[in-house]
């Protein structure tokens, strides 16, 4: 327990160790710690940013989905409208065509009837003339009695 030169040895050793520690141990470790702290802080910030962006993106996605739905509804409504329009048009066209056909048929029938009546009248006239010829037993001059015959025909 004597105080002796060990005191000096210990002091020198201590100073040596402190110097060494200050030179080679402390700075690199502190630097690593600081860098890591910064890295962690950056990482957290990036995470926060990512979260924020995700939120924005999901909001955007919701919005565009909404838009799309609206547009789709519009398109469907338009299509429905157009379809009913087409059906109406087709209906009208068919009806017109039908009317037209009916009118044509009616006209033809009328014509046919007229023709038949004309023929009948002619035949009746001829028959009447022939009958009269037979009755009169003499030839009727067609040319001389054409006027008579025609008025007769018209009367029938």
């Amino acid at each position: 327990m004597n105080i002796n030169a060990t005191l000096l040895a210990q002091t020198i050793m201590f100073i040596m160790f402190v110097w060494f520690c200050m030179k080679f141990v402390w700075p690199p470790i502190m630097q690593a710690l600081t860098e890591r702290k910064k890295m962690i802080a950056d990482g957290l910030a990036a995470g926060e940013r990512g979260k924020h962006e995700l939120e924005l993106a999901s909001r955007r996605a919701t919005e565009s989905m909404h838009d799309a739905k609206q547009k789709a509804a519009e398109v469907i409504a338009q299509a429905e409208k157009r379809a009913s329009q087409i059906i109406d048009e087709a209906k009208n066209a068919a009806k017109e065509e039908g009317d037209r056909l009916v009118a044509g048929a009616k006209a033809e029938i009328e014509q046919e009837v007229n023709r038949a009546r004309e023929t009948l009248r002619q035949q009746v006239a001829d028959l009447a003339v022939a009958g009269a010829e037979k009755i009169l037993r003499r030839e009727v001059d067609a040319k001389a009695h054409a006027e008579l015959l025609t008025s007769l025909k018209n009367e029938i």
Partner: protein
Amino acid sequence: MSGETQTSAEYIKHHLQNLTYGQLPDGSWGIAHSAEQAKEMGFWAINLDTTIIAFILGAIFLFFFVRAAQKASAGVPTGLQNFVEWIVDFIDTSVRGSFTAKNDMVAPLALTIFAWILLMNLMDLVPIDYLPLAAHAAGLPFLKVVPTTDPNATFGMSIAVFVLVVFYSIKMKGLGGFVGELTLQPFGKFGLPANIFLEGVNLIAKPVSLALRLFGNMYAGEMIFILIALMGASWASATFGSTLLFGSQIVLSLGWAIFHILIVTLQAFIFMTLTIVYMDMAHQEHH
């Protein structure tokens, strides 16, 4: 026990004697073989055990920390690096807490003090007879295993700290400021002798209290280990009494060792914290 014929007093003295190298009475240089011889060597002798063990422990500390420092990166730390960084972070927090000025030396200083003292103190937990017995087998008469139970070691450190405190006081406040602090406080310039006395005691008390606190704690702890070890030494025959003593030694040394882990760490921490505080005071303009 290193010898069959030792009495308890001899055993204790043997454990408290350093292995001293110096000039023997006949004029030659060698290792002192008794406490008296070691005393007669005067100042120019060196305690080989303290110096060498302290050096080895310091080297171990720096070896591991330098290895960790070389591998240190901002990546995920593993194993040794993790442990070292944990300690460094702990020291850094302590320094930031008590040291307000800017000085890149204080934190490494604190780290060195803490780690080195902790390792030296931990030598206390090696069973007290192992290393001295090994030394005895190697032909060395004494071996005091715990460097911090040697006041030379504790005063060595506290004097270095004291020199730093004075150096930074003068550097930060100028020689005039430092002398002014010593002479003009607390009673003004007319109470100069009283001021010098009070502030001088205040200044000298720093290294003395630092060194003696550590030394006293470790010395007392070591002493209790020695006393506990003596209980088992009374093992003579398988009588009830000696068996009881033997059993108590095991239980007591275990208990004291576990309690001592606290003291060992605490003393290293106190030495470190006080050093930081003294350095902080050296950097303050007014105190």
